[in-house]
């Protein structure tokens, strides 16, 4: 990425200025989610949606991801646990990094783990596609989340019997009103994540 004000070149994945007048500077990351439109709209009925650019809208490729998945990779890591184009959820907490294969998360629905000394939770939303990650503690107490498979609707519980929503807030029980802190979960290809996180581990059940 290049800025028009100074002509500095910025690295997309890190937000670091790699060349030019602002070299060495760092943009602050903003927490963002990848959600289905339905889930987002349900949470933000008054939110705003980026409108298509009319002259380009015919070029938008609804099959973009499957097409990109076929493209060659510029760097690969043979002998590592995953294939180059495997999609992972990359997590970086307290200097430690771990890649969670998307396929594993989608089948497990909830992953409780420890990373960088903190308990974390990766959660698949009610739509089966949206994903969020949280530090799963409230006031120093670990919150062990699990999906209540007996419930007819999507239901996320903790061991105390409180139930939680996809925003990470307890909606009933002992913890009602408490919210977990959401953290960045980056959806990325394995080769890319591994390239920028050479020391990354790979999650295994």
């Amino acid at each position: 990425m290049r800025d028009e004000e100074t002509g500095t070149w910025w690295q997309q994945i890190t937000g670091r200025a790699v060349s030019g007048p602002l070299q060495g500077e760092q943009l602050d990351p903003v927490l963002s989610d990848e959600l289905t439109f339905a889930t987002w709209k349900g949470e933000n009925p008054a939110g705003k949606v980026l409108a298509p650019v009319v002259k380009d809208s015919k070029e938008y490729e609804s099959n973009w991801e499957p097409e990109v998945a076929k493209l060659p990779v510029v760097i690969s890591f043979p002998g590592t646990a995953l294939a180059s184009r495997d999609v992972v959820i990359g997590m970086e907490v307290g200097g430690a990094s771990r890649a969670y294969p998307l396929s594993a998360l989608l089948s497990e629905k909830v992953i409780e783990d420890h990373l960088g000394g903190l308990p974390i939770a990766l959660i698949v939303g009610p739509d089966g596609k949206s994903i969020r990650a949280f530090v799963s503690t409230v006031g120093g107490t670990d919150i062990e989340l699990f999906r209540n498979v007996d419930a007819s609707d999507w239901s996320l519980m903790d061991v105390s019997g409180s139930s939680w929503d996809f925003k990470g807030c307890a909606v009933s029980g002992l913890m009602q009103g408490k919210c977990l802190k959401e953290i960045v979960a980056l959806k990325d290809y394995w080769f890319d994540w591994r390239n920028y996180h050479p020391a990354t581990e790979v999650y295994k059940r």
Partner: protein
Amino acid sequence: MSKIEIQAQPVVRSRVLMPALVFSVLVGFTLALFLFPALIIQPFKYQSPRGITLAMAVRQVAPLWSLASLAAALLFAVILWERIGRWTRPLLVLGIVLASAATVMSRIDYFEWMFHPAGTPGFRSADQAQLAPSEMVMAVNLNGDARAYPILEMAYHHIVNDTVSDVPIVVTY
């Protein structure tokens, strides 16, 4: 008589050869300022950290250096014009055309030909947006100001500059 001949020959050669050599080097240098980074920074090609650092450094100085080099090449072309035969002059013109093209390319961010900037973003309300429920969006919420950037659009434009709750942000995909 013979003394004059011996001296005249090297003088004529250096009157053409030296400026021609300098002219060629200047044209080659101007071309390299564009071509070197262009060859290193190619889509879907691996760039070593050293290669990319060097290519970026060249792109930073290329706009100024190529202009200076082109100006110097033009000067030498003018000097050479009267000293060479009419059949060699097209080479001078070719050199200047190539160097001019490289100078223009050094000042253009030609990567933007591949990636179409979204410009100033327009927005719709959640109800007006024509998106399928299962369509993925990148979602940002700053101080209650919630924005959704459809992946369909982001995968094409890649970069959107926006201001959310008075915070300037860049959304990238």
